[in-house]
């Protein structure tokens, strides 16, 4: 590759052609401030905070958008540069409702950080916020959009368009009226938004935040008449530490359990348990569908079957590919299976009245808040999951409770509904559901373990945008002999832009998959919209490594070997896809418009 030589702050450097000035400076450990730039997104060059000076050139250059060229002499810290940056930050502050002490993002706001670094004083420009009429869109159970805090960097617009291929957020108007808006300026809950929260994860300020339920959860915990159960999703335990000052890639399962117990939750349980349950139900559903299609030739049964545990994906397919709703597994997500069981089976077992129970979940996700509020999710006779917190909200609550998180001892989940297999853990990573399902389904069909060393089905792992894997079934048990010689074709996609690629292939008849796993967020749940900020490719990889480490360390690696699952079927559900399962663990979907 061609190298380009240039000089940055009097240091000579040679970088690959096409490198931006921002990254060239990074190689020299020179930090150039940015706002509109995000590693996951295309270059915008909007905010102009990253301007640098090229010696001999009058105008400044945006470091994020300018490729290096031979012989450049760049100054990243000249008087001219500092003045320009300070002016830009000052201007942004003037159009931003800098109500920092009342902001959810206080302490985690990039504009606040830069204002502090550049000493933006009180003697500032004229406040523009008070001159405009802003309304806050807090109608969605997932996302609050406050335009008065928006600095128009368009990270959210690019996220929604590039990563998710949705375009729920877009730029409207021009000049002083320019704003980030939705279709016909409708509130977020009325438009095509999937609530994935990827925009929330990338918003540099408090303009897009999750709808938080922290006070409601504290109130429930403090109510002596309520039994509060909490479930924690697989991807929370490998990211929570980040929001509490620890480096990415730490597994903090035990500390998290300890913290939840100290906070006062009555039962600290695990979504991983119902992840295992999802595998049993969804895996059997897949096998049943294969039989209906391959043997019974039932025209009403559809393949490929797609996963349904990502609520962002579910809403996406409801809007964008409603013809394929019959392909969506009817199995509920682990969160909602858990909720339905908590207020029925668990309540009975623990001798608690379900109306006295508050069911809380901690999720890496903002769409889970929406999912819990879906009208279908009342199969216990109550709202199955009452309150959903993001990883970030839990971190905030741990801080509020004054818990020294890093020094906590590791603790175990409560039982019942606290034991999980490694298969449940890997739900948090793209490909994890597929791997967990294959570990079980293959064994159900053949009586043997999947033919991969250490049960690690590596072809379905990793961060490739779309992954395909084929498993040939041989020597099936008599009951499944129709699958003998069948090559089970699977496909995995993460991020809705990639889901679109896969679904278009299916729609155009270019692919003949049997089973498709789709997660709405890049990297799967570990990169969810409710995860600690920042999230980027390197951090996603570290979280993923942690998840697979957690899996490897588990004594049980297969969902169907989870003793609590076995017991659950014996005591309560009787059999997969049985009557009780259909009542509590399966759901239906709704066709939605594209606008």
């Amino acid at each position, binding site marked *: 590759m061609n190298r380009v030589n240039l000089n940055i702050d009097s240091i000579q450097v040679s970088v690959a052609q096409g490198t931006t000035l921002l990254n060239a400076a990074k190689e020299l450990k020179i930090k150039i401030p940015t706002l509109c730039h995000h590693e996951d997104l295309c270059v915008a060059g909007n905010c102009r905070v990253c301007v640098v000076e090229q010696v001999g050139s009058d*105008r400044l250059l945006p470091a994020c958008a300018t490729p290096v060229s031979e012989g450049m002499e760049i100054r990243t810290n000249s008087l001219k540069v500092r003045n320009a940056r300070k002016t830009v930050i000052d201007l942004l502050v003037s159009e931003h409702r800098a109500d920092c002490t009342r902001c959810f993002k206080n302490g985690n706001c990039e504009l606040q950080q830069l204002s502090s670094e550049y000493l933006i004083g009180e003697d500032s420009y004229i406040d523009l916020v008070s001159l405009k009429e802003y309304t806050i869109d807090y109608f969605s159970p997932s996302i609050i959009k406050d335009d008065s805090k928006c600095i128009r960097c368009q990270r959210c617009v690019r996220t929604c368009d590039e990563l998710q291929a949705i375009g729920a957020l877009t730029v409207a108007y*021009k000049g002083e009226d320019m704003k980030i808006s939705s279709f016909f300026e409708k509130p977020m809950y009325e438009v095509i938004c999937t609530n994935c929260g990827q925009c929330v994860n990338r918003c540099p300020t408090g303009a897009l935040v999750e709808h938080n339920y922290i006070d409601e959860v504290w109130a429930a915990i403090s109510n002596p008449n309520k039994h509060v159960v909490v479930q924690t999703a697989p991807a929370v335990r490998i990211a929570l530490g980040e929001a509490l000052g620890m480096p990415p890639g730490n597994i903090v399962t035990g500390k998290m359990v300890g913290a939840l117990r100290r906070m006062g939750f009555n039962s600290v349980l695990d979504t991983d348990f119902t992840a295992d349950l999802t595998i049993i139900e969804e895996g059997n559903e897949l096998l049943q569908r294969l039989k209906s299609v391959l043997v019974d030739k039932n025209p009403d049964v559809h393949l490929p079957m797609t996963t349904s545990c990502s609520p962002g994906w579910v809403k996406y397919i409801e809007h964008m590919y409603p013809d394929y709703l019959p392909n969506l597994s009817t199995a509920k997500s682990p969160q909602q299976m858990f909720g339905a069981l908590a207020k029925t089976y668990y309540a009975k077992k623990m001798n608690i009245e379900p109306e006295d129970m508050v069911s809380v979940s901690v999720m890496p996700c903002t769409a889970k808040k929406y999912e819990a509020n879906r009208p279908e999710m009342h199969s216990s006779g109550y709202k199955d999951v009452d309150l959903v917190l993001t990883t970030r909200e839990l971190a905030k609550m741990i801080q509020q409770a004054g818990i020294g998180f890093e020094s906590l001892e590791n603790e175990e989940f409560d039982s019942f509904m606290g034991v999980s297999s490694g298969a449940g853990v890997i739900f948090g990573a793209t490909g994890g559901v597929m791997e967990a399902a294959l570990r079980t389904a293959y064994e159900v069909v053949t009586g043997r373990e999947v033919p991969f060393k250490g049960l690690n089905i590596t072809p379905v792992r990793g961060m490739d945008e779309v992954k395909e894997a084929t498993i040939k079934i041989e020597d099936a048990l008599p009951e499944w002999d129709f699958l003998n010689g069948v090559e089970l074709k699977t496909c995995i996609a993460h991020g809705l832009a990639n889901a679109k690629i896969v679904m278009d292939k299916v729609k155009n008849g270019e692919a003949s998959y049997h089973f498709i796993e789709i997660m709405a967020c890049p990297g799967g749940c570990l990169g969810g919209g409710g995860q600690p900020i920042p999230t980027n490719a390197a951090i996603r990889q570290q979280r993923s490594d942690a998840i697979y480490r957690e899996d490897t360390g588990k004594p049980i690696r297969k969902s169907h070997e989870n003793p609590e699952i076995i017991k659950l079927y014996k005591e309560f559900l009787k059999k997969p896809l049985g009557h009780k399962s259909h009542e509590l663990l399966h759901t239906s979907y709704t066709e939605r418009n594209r606008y």
Partner: protein
Amino acid sequence: MPKKNLKRLDLIFKNEHDGEKVLMKTLARPAQEIVNYLIISGLKGRGGAGYPTGLKWKLASEAEGEMKYVICNADEGEPGTFKDREILSQVPNKVLVGMAVCAKIIGAHQGFIYLRGEYKFLLQQLNDVIDDFHVWTNKMGMDFRVNIFLGSGAYICGEETALFESMEGFRGEPRNKPPFPTQAGYRGMPTVINNVETLAHAFSIFKYGPEMFKDLGVQDSRGSKVFSVSGDTPIPGIYELEFGMSVQKFVEDFGDGDAKAVQVGGAAGFCVPRKKFVNTKIGYQGKLTGESLPTGGSMMIFNSSRSMYNVLHNYLDFFVEESCGQCTPCRVGTQQLLLGIEAVKKGERSSDYLNRLLDLAENMRVTAKCGLGQSVANSFSSIVENFKEEMIY
């Protein structure tokens, strides 16, 4: 009666009925020779930025791309500019010939005229001319079609990369440069985008040779220029004059005897106060034709009855509305400049605040993403610095 210091030229609007012949003769010449003609002539872009036309065509001809495009920028939106409208009304064939020659040189088969939305009334007559033009090109065996793309009214779409975005169906927002249009323009393909007047001048250069053009004007500002004269003048209108004139001579010819300032280059241009009339010349060297946006020689004369505060307020109002809103310095800076001069005028901020605004304008000039935001400082600083007392009292 106004004087007549300045020679009136009649190159652009001279009705010449030999468009077909000029095209045929020019196409017969080697491409290299035509490019050299343009380079020798010293023709620079008449939209205001002043990029050498020959060089632009040369770069596009050398660029690689599956497709290439020639675009005529007729999104004439600079306040006080109305000459492209006249050129397209009176001598559209010259523009089309310019486009066709460019197409041959760079290897384009498709051309567009991006016509300002407000010029919709020209659509029918232009399409008729284009139909006739296609008959010529067909006869010459040339594979080149021109279509008109009608703009929708945003000033920013006159900025070349915002224009491409607009044509591609997106919001009219400027792109990052590099890449430049000659490398990646419309649809990401090498594109030559020229102002209407530039293409019409190219016709004259093809017909009469480069020397004739080069003999007009001064040093780096060669040829003639079409000026749109408005404001406090007894003879508003469109005039073709030689580059290099002083504002003094211009005012003597066009003013009403009481001129106190001339705004050169529209809202994006500079204000020249009376005391600088003698020493200010119109041409690229003095950077006085407006730097980057399609200003193209707007000359607005203000006499002593005019409040320069109101003039500036009007320009800023315009920018506050017409900024695309994409980059911080332009979106927020324009609002702050407008609110700032209002606050000083009302006494809500001290006159010192004007210095802060001048500093802001300078920072906008060096940090804004495109010519719009960069050029706000031109009018702002030249008006505030030269008419400070009018801003305060």
